[in-house]
């Protein structure tokens, strides 16, 4: 199992963000995206998530084109964007419950899965509180708790530490480490330090690997 990116280029609007991007990610590996604002970190993540067609180049999964079979590609990844996708009118638990149903979780296991995810995110006490009353950090934790609902190999995380306090960042670190220990892959864009051991670094827009 491996994700390979070959000569990838991205055009947004009429502007070329990056070109000739090459890297390979094996199970347990993590890639940290670095670069100034507008260098294409978010666009690369959206491209890998299948939202954005590449202007040039290929994305391969185990050597086969990954983006062509959209359904299979969606099944093996989890994408976390800038926004938390928390509905302010729904309760914290109901927000998670909706995602669990959307992912097609077994109805019997759904309740337990939601409880476990809420526990992990430290939001058990807010279970019945409407999403609109959560603080920015709590919303981010709720969004991260979504990662626990669906088993997926590839995590694409865009600024996951936004609005998180130190203890929540530490929790995120554990989450990432546990995912990698199970053979998961992580590609993460952040402008602050993330507790991610032995991660490789990709500088955008040059595409230099470190």
């Amino acid at each position, binding site marked *: 199992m491996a994700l390979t990116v070959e000569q990838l*280029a991205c*055009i947004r*609007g*009429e*502007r070329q963000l990056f*070109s000739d991007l090459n890297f390979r990610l094996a199970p347990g590996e993590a890639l940290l995206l670095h670069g100034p604002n507008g260098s294409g970190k978010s666009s690369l993540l959206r491209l890998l998530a299948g939202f954005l067609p590449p202007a*040039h180049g290929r994305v391969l999964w185990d050597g086969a084109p990954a983006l062509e079979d959209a359904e299979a590609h969606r099944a093996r990844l989890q994408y976390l964007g800038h926004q938390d996708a928390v509905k302010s009118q729904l309760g914290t638990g109901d927000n998670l419950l909706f995602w669990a149903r959307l992912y097609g979780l077994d109805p019997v296991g759904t309740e337990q899965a939601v409880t476990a995810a809420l526990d992990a995110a430290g939001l058990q006490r807010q279970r019945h509180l409407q999403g609109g009353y959560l603080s920015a950090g709590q919303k981010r934790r709720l969004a991260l708790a979504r990662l626990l609902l669906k088993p997926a190999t590839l995590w694409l995380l865009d600024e996951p530490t936004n609005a998180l306090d130190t203890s929540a960042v530490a929790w995120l670190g554990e989450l990432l480490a546990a995912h990698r220990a199970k053979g998961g892959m992580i590609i993460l864009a952040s402008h602050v330090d993330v507790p991610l051991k032995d991660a490789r670094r990709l500088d955008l827009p040059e595409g230099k690997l470190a």
Partner: protein
Amino acid sequence: MLHALANPARFLRLMAAIRPWAAGVAVLGLGIGLAWGLLYSPPDYQQGETVRIMYIHVPAAWMGMFIYAAMAVASATALIWRHPVAELVAKASAPAGAAFTLICLITGSLWGKPMWGAWWVWDARLTSMLILFFLYLGYIALWEAFDDPARAGRAAAILALVGAINLPIIKFSVDWWNTMHQPASVLTLEGPKIHPDILWPLLITALGAKGYYVWLLTVRVRAEILKRQARILRFAAATDRRAG
């Protein structure tokens, strides 16, 4: 890798080659056709001289529909083959199509006053053209609603296709509505049988109008390509400055 539009020299050359021919067809067709129709064709035994409005009204109606069809074909090309120039052809077509449709509506209303005694009659054909005019306006408004021309172009292309699929249904429903509410008019702008004396000037005018449309496309698409090139260069300059 350069954006496909950054070097569309082939299209610009092709358009430069077509332009004088299209202009020639436009001048000759419109000149001969309109002069023949407006000055030398026989007056109608029922409608008298007012029938001459038809030599503008009918070609304008044909052009309004023809250009929408052309727009839909260009939009399909843009969506399926991701051809950026096709998108620009569709964009450049819309104002021309809207203008022809408006001319058709205005001449129809001018003709209605002496014939029906009213400036506007909800006749099936005129009503269909009015809806077509609204479709053009929606298309143009959608293009203008986005800052990013790539996004605008493809959204507008989807709208043009949806409109093209729906247009025959709208036409059918308007005809249905018309027969429900009033008996078919005895006098219509397009009579049941058209005499050759009327048909020839009509066809020549329509040909001239098509030449004009093609000429307009070569001018407007060229302008759009240059505008995009200028934008791309400006982006490149901004990126260089940041990198340096």
